[in-house]
């Protein structure tokens, strides 16, 4: 077996706040292979973004605190190398697209200036590039994301572009570095469906063409089904189910995944089921054992006492639930 490009092992992250210690990530385990398109689904506050921020080392510490775990990117442990070196590792290796392109772009600099900065700093300090090559690369990056009239866009400020265009600029920025792993954190949440369709299609084509590995973070099961080939479902700081996309959608196993699927409004129009009762737990004092047990319809005694590990349930399908213990 080839080592995965990115591997997160048993990651625990918490936040120190006035009221105590929030135990947010509770043993996140996650792997992305080369060229894979992986989806990470979960509801607000389940720790999707915290996980990815830990990978990027942009988690604010303090109040954040990494208590345990390892993150391997191409065999180097991102948590053990010092911050300066991380830049070198991730600058070329990992890039990220954020949810809100309006907040991700600086309103007082032109698109060109911001894009050229990324080109400049994505290369190591030794490699000096001529000004013209930098500009050419930036313009090409805009062409790649099918921007009309890229020369003019270079002179524009973010406010002059529409939401969809801004997100395309962010995609251009993320891809221009030639990084191997792309993390897209809810890239289309702030966009309309028709624009979302365009942006996802564009992103899919580019990723295919450049053979990037991608992590798509989203709360939309529909997007995951159409876009990824492997899915991780996250609940309250840990992974509850991991499976190939087809397998997960034809046969969701974890009670949480099942509830989530039921709650999605469907075009077939069979009404909306009240998927999951209750609400996500308080991280100050999370439930013992399986964090889902207070909301689970199949709760057993063991669920309150022990944390379920991943059990194998079918081809490449893992689920963290005692129902599937052999």
């Amino acid at each position, binding site marked *: 077996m080839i080592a995965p490009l990115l591997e997160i092992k048993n990651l625990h992250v918490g936040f120190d706040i006035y009221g105590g210690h929030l135990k947010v990530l509770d043993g996140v385990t996650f792997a992305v292979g080369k060229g894979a398109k992986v989806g990470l689904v979960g509801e607000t506050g389940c720790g999707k973004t915290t996980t990815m921020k830990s990978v990027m080392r942009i988690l604010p510490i303090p109040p954040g605190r990494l208590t345990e775990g390892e993150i391997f990117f191409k065999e180097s442990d991102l948590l053990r190398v010092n911050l300066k070196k991380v830049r070198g590792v991730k600058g070329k290796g990992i890039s990220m697209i954020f949810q809100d392109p309006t907040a991700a772009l600086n309103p007082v600099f032109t698109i060109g200036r911001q894009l050229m900065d990324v080109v400049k700093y994505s290369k190591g300090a030794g490699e000096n590039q001529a000004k013209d090559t930098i500009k050419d690369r930036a313009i090409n990056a805009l062409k790649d994301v099918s921007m009309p009239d890229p020369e003019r866009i270079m002179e524009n400020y973010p406010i002059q572009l529409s939401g969809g265009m801004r997100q395309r600029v962010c995609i251009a920025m993320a891809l221009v570095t030639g990084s191997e792993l792309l993390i897209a954190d809810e890239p289309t949440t702030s966009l309309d469906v*028709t624009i979302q369709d365009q942006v996802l299609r564009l992103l899919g084509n580019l990723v295919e063409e450049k053979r990037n590995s991608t992590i798509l973070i989203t709360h939309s099961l529909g997007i995951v089904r159409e876009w990824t080939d492997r899915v991780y479902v996250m609940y309250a700081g840990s992974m509850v189910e991991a499976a190939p996309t087809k397998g997960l959608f034809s046969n969701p196993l974890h009670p949480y995944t099942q509830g989530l699927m039921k709650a999605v409004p469907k075009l077939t129009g*069979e009404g909306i089921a009240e998927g999951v009762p209750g609400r996500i737990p308080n991280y100050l004092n999370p439930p013992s054992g399986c964090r889902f047990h207070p909301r689970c319809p199949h709760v057993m005694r063991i669920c309150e006492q022990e944390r379920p590990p991943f059990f194998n349930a079918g081809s490449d399908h893992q689920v963290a639930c005692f129902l599937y213990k052999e």
Partner: protein
Amino acid sequence: MTEEILTVKDLKKYFLTSRGTVKAVDGVTFSIKEGEMLGLVGESGSGKSTVAYTLVGIYQPTAGEITFKGQDIGKDFSKRLKPLKKDIQIVFQDPGSSLNPRRSIKQILELPLKVHHISSNKGIIEQVAKLLEMVELPLDYQYKYPQAIGGGEKQMVAVARALATNPSFVVLDEPTSALDVSVQAKIINLLMRLQQRLNLTYLFITHDLSLMRNVATRVAIMYLGKMCEVACTSEFFQNPLHPYTQMLLSSIPVVSDEEEMLKPKKILSRGEIPSPVNVPPGCSFHLRCPEGMELCSQVDPGMVEVGEEHTVRCHLFQGAKIAASTSQGEE
């Protein structure tokens, strides 16, 4: 047949800005029957919220008629009488900003009761308890502040506040778009139960067509301040006619193969909604339309009826009245 509770005729709302006139709503005609839920769907910038705000009296319409229970309410909007305000209520999109962070839930719910003299000072405590019970929140929530409760629960409080005056018509302006699906499911089901119990009429504004498939009686699509297509829900989803409706439907990410089959054949979405300051001439959609003809860039099509309660605004269907689809008899 049930009666029409609200009729909107050729409603226009223009905003004057330094860059020109924004035609946010430009000639919208529709009606809502008593006890139904009309889903008003559109992308951001299509003018759906402006329609809502005009109905509840936040904006004065530039032109057009709004008739509510036989009474013209469009004209003297600043002189709306209290009984009318009581009868038309609204739930906003983001409960985080529509609830005052410095007021407790009790204070929030008391205000409409006091303003409209719904109960005596003593009765208010009971009334607040009743409202909380109606939206299925525990009683001790009345002492909490909005920041202490979850997003879904905040929206429940907003619903309770809207229902405090015992309205008959409620505008829901994207009440669940800021929430997760499992929370959305709870709120939608609650809203449906309340509609049954209190005989409410809803105007549900949203951008989520799959949600409307499950809850709306009729669906209306808006694009750049104009209606594109209006039809009963089952007819709308089985026989979508307007190219924009088809584009919207084919862009929806779905979770199962059965749903995939229900979508119209893939129409690749292209272009973006133009700025309402510079509306394209002719049909406002022609720049993005896969079926655009020369006529479309010159003449704005009118609304035509193509089937029972199914109207479309598109040149493809002008004159040619389409035979009612076979499926119509089923529902």
